[in-house]
């Protein structure tokens, strides 16, 4: 029995068709092209335009309940929605605001904080970034040392945050700061939200080796943050972070995105038939494509089994770590194969400024970039080594 049959009721089929038609009719073509080029460095304007289109339809923040302006999708609807968004080459949702901070504020924020924070995310007017990692706190996040010192009704921040994705296009940051050093390292961490325009704060770009600008280092030099911008209790931020990171793990399997990427590879092979003079090689490539399809099938079914085991996606346990591990590994394999299939055409680094060089992409000329860029996915959001540690500890009891 295929667990995916739950999406094949008449209602779900009608919903899927509605989403598909909507994306086709409303997604701006220039944005679609960038997503189809596997770009994760979408400019603010592109993300915002699409978000506002979804907002007008009532589909912005698809994981949010109606009470906070979300569509209030059932888990089944949410699953089908995300899948269609991916197949239609629409941008990923704005993970930091709507995916991470929003649900966390709903769970831990005061009513005042909900009023202040949630509408900006819902309307797509306020962009958020995440201040978690530091130069010496990566996989070992709890060892973070960026300091927040309580002075009257403010915290004074000193230190730096590393690998801040979208820090250069965001308005606000949520982050973890060290307020006490006396106990266990997980204690003494406080969760704050702050305006990136605060005096004393600087954002330094970090260029990736393939040339994209996605991440930054953020420096704090006596940055003052009002105590009212603290989420939860002082020194108790680790609990909130764990909740927030469990949301992040859930979003990183990217099965539908991978199916879309594999679809593009198949289209490339069909259009160019590059191995028509080399039947043995064609056979070998077709086998690899088929194997990747099967791997994705296994991952997708596993994802559905995990997500719909309980009522509500947030109940997914530590076994979800394997979705991130396999999801990113398979994604890497798809991009590697896509690049290898382009052969000599993959040598060129020809992405243009507007990202709309679809002709070059069709000819395989941008196909090495995703392979390079997506190596980060095996490192970020809890490296795959950390995910394996989680499974070892929390699932297998080792």
């Amino acid at each position, binding site marked *: 029995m295929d667990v995916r049959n739950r999406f094949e009721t008449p209602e779900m089929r009608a919903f899927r068709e509605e989403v598909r038609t909507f994306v086709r009719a409303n997604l701006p073509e220039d944005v679609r092209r960038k997503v189809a080029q596997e770009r994760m460095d979408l400019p603010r304007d592109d993300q915002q335009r699409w978000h506002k289109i979804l907002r007008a339809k009532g589909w912005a923040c698809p994981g949010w309940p109606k009470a906070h302006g979300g569509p209030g999708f059932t888990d089944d609807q949410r699953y089908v929605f995300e899948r269609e968004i991916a197949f239609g080459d629409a941008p990923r949702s704005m993970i930091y605001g709507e995916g991470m901070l929003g649900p966390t504020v709903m769970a831990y924020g005061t009513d005042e904080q909900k009023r202040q924070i949630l509408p900006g995310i819902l309307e797509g007017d306020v962009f958020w970034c995440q201040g978690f*990692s530091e130069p*010496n706190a*990566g*996989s*070992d996040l709890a*060892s973070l040392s960026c300091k927040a010192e309580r002075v009257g009704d403010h915290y004074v921040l000193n230190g730096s945050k*590393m*690998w801040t994705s979208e820090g250069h296009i965001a308005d606000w940051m949520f982050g973890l700061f060290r307020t006490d050093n006396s106990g266990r390292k997980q204690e003494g961490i406080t969760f704050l939200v702050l305006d990136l325009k605060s005096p004393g704060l600087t954002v330094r770009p*970090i*260029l*990736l*080796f*393939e*040339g994209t600008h996605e*991440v930054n280092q953020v420096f704090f030099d006596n940055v003052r943050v009002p105590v009212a911008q603290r989420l939860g209790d002082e020194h108790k931020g680790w609990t909130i972070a764990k909740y927030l990171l469990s949301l992040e793990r859930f979003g990183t399997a990217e099965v539908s995105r991978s199916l879309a990427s594999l679809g593009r590879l198949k289209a*490339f092979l069909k259009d*160019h038939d*590059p*191995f028509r*003079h*080399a039947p*043995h*090689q064609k056979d*070998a*490539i077709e086998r690899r494509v088929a194997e990747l399809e099967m791997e994705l099938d296994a991952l997708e079914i596993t994802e559905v089994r995990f997500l719909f085991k309980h009522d509500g996606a947030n109940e997914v346990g530590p076994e979800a770590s394997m979705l991130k591990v396999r999801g990113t590994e398979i994604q*890497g394999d798809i991009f*590697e194969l896509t*690049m*290898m*299939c*382009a*052969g*000599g*055409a*993959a*040598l*060129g*680094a*020809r992405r243009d400024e507007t990202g709309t060089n679809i002709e070059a992409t069709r*000819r*395989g*000329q941008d196909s*090495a*970039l995703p*392979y*390079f860029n997506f*190596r*980060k996915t*095996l*490192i*970020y959001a809890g*490296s*795959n*080594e950390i995910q*394996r540690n989680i499974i070892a500890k929390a699932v297998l009891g080792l």
Partner: protein
Amino acid sequence: MLPTLTEEQRLLKDSLERFRQQDYAFEKRKGQLAKLGAKDDPVWAQFAELGWLAATLPEEHGGLGGSHADLALLMEQFGRGLVTSPFVPTVVVGATAFRLAGSGKQKSEILPGIAEGRTKLALAYLEAPGQLDPAIVATRARNDGDNFVITGNKIAALYANVADHLLVSARVFGQPGDHQGISLFVVPAHAKGLAIDAYRTHDDGWAGDLHLDQVHVPAEALVGSAGSAHSTIEGALDAGAAALCAEAVGAMWSLHDLTLDYIKVRKQFGATISSFQAIQHRMVNMYMKCQLAQSMALAGMAALDSSDATARRRAVSAAKVQVGRAARHVGEDAIQLHGGIAMTDEYAAGHYFKRLTMIRLMFGDEEYHLRRYLGR
């Protein structure tokens, strides 16, 4: 990389190490790369001055008569230092084509120029995305009196934009895929009807797509006889592939060393990450891949001296398959074991990884060479 070194080879190695550690240290590399597309690239002049361009060329044509062992030594050091230049297209692939099939006149005109750093070459043999087989030639050359007229398109010709002469494969009879019927022509860079669309490659080198619209060349432009250039091109590509394998081995050892150094200083969870067995085993796997790739690269390079073309093909293909797979493994794991820092532009690991990946794509990837090894 070589088991033993002669006195001359020791001196050559010293000069290469000095260059890559001083003039081409990673902090200086960006500055050097900026001049790479220029005709008067100072790095190339330095290569000539140090005798590296002449090292492997025959003595009767201005070279120093070095062996394939010397080539292995040069390439390994280029790999270790991430030295980016038109060396392989010019001194290895281009010169080999002339040595295999060029006329006496061609050799005496072209090879001394290479040795002195005056002449650069580029081979244009690919025509479509995904295509790797030099027999798939649709570009046509037709006779016009004593001339040939070439029309067609080529892609991904390495350093086509800085080359003085382009070696262009074109079909005089037969169909794409046929070994017979392919000719190789020397086309001057400024030939009428030739347009080059140049672009940077991911490893910070250059390549160009060629559009040839009724390019007229004289009969003397033929390298070898008409219609029988396939084995010449294969021989030149094998020399190039063997050289790239040696370069890849150097690059892999550099990644190995960078990673080994980093895991010994990076601390997480109160310990250096090198103390974790999960990390140790992956480091050991990297080490084993480097050693095995080195063995295969040496065997591939040695096979270039073989008079048996089948044996040469098998050895070079075996090396390219093994080295290519090791390059992926070592490149990906070097980045993973480092974590985020290796994703950045300012750290060397990602740049080694890009070069290794481009090497996998050049002169036939693993699937192509696996097929060729099987004789298919």
